[in-house]
């Protein structure tokens, strides 16, 4: 049995304790959410609140962090299983529900900040709009423009007060073509990376 101290070795002495105390909400467990959750769990965020009503399908495997054996499982359960396979010390709060304006608070009220990892633009708008109205002083990190491959130089982050957007701000999905693993993972990890930075910065680090 690995001890907590052994597991969390070689960590940043200033930022890591803050990450351990932090709770990050992740709205959606698809390409963006599964990738950002895994990185945040590896980095040492103490608690993740993950919400997604969907089940793992074969076509998700082109970019989402699931396995063939997990097809048909709830994404939140499959993601929790995968995270616990490398980090037994994380607290995971799972909500297998569709996020709506009515349940947003109940799901994410304990979150220090929220990562928007939804698929459809109208859902992204709903989530951002509700979050900023309900929590004007809590950060939300959204993604916009992840379709295609390559073009690393076009991916960037914008900040509008407590709203942050990562992506290329222009790539639209083509019909019947999924986002591609590499670009989704880049954007998801930029979201996660920014979350770590915001948590550390809140304490002046």
């Amino acid at each position, binding site marked *: 049995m690995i001890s907590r101290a052994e597991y969390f070795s070689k960590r940043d002495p200033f930022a890591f304790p803050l990450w351990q105390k932090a709770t990050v909400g992740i709205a959606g467990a698809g390409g963006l959410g599964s990738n950002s959750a895994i990185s945040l769990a590896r980095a040492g965020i103490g608690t993740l609140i993950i919400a997604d009503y969907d089940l793992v399908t074969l076509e998700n495997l082109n970019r989402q962090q699931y396995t063939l054996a997990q097809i048909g499982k709830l994404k939140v359960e499959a993601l929790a299983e995968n995270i616990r396979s490398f980090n037994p010390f994380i607290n995971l709060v799972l909500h297998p529900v569709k996020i709506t304006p009515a349940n947003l608070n109940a799901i994410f009220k304990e979150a220090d900040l929220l990562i928007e990892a939804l698929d459809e633009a109208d859902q992204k708008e709903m989530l951002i709009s509700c979050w900023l109205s309900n929590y004007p002083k809590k950060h939300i990190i959204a993604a916009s423009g992840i379709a295609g491959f390559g073009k690393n130089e076009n991916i960037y982050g914008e900040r509008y007060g407590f709203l942050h957007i990562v992506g290329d701000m222009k*790539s639209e999905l083509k019909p019947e073509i999924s986002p591609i693993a590499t670009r989704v993972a880049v954007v998801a990890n930029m979201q996660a990376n920014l979350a770590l930075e915001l948590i550390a910065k809140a304490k002046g680090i």
Partner: protein
Amino acid sequence: MAEESVFLVNGNKLSWKEGLVVADALKMMNYTFKMLVIKMNGELVKRENWQTTPIPENADIKVIHLISGG
């Protein structure tokens, strides 16, 4: 000579006049995005208020385009 009254949309200077509402800013910019978030002077303007929220002189409006994919 009086300076022209203006407001900003995503950094573009537009001519301001009394009576403009947030929805007018989208038309003036010819924006056709379906899903977006609008912040004016740092505050969120909810979709249901776009037609009724006046644009103050020198307002700084940010229109953020949301694209599907996740």
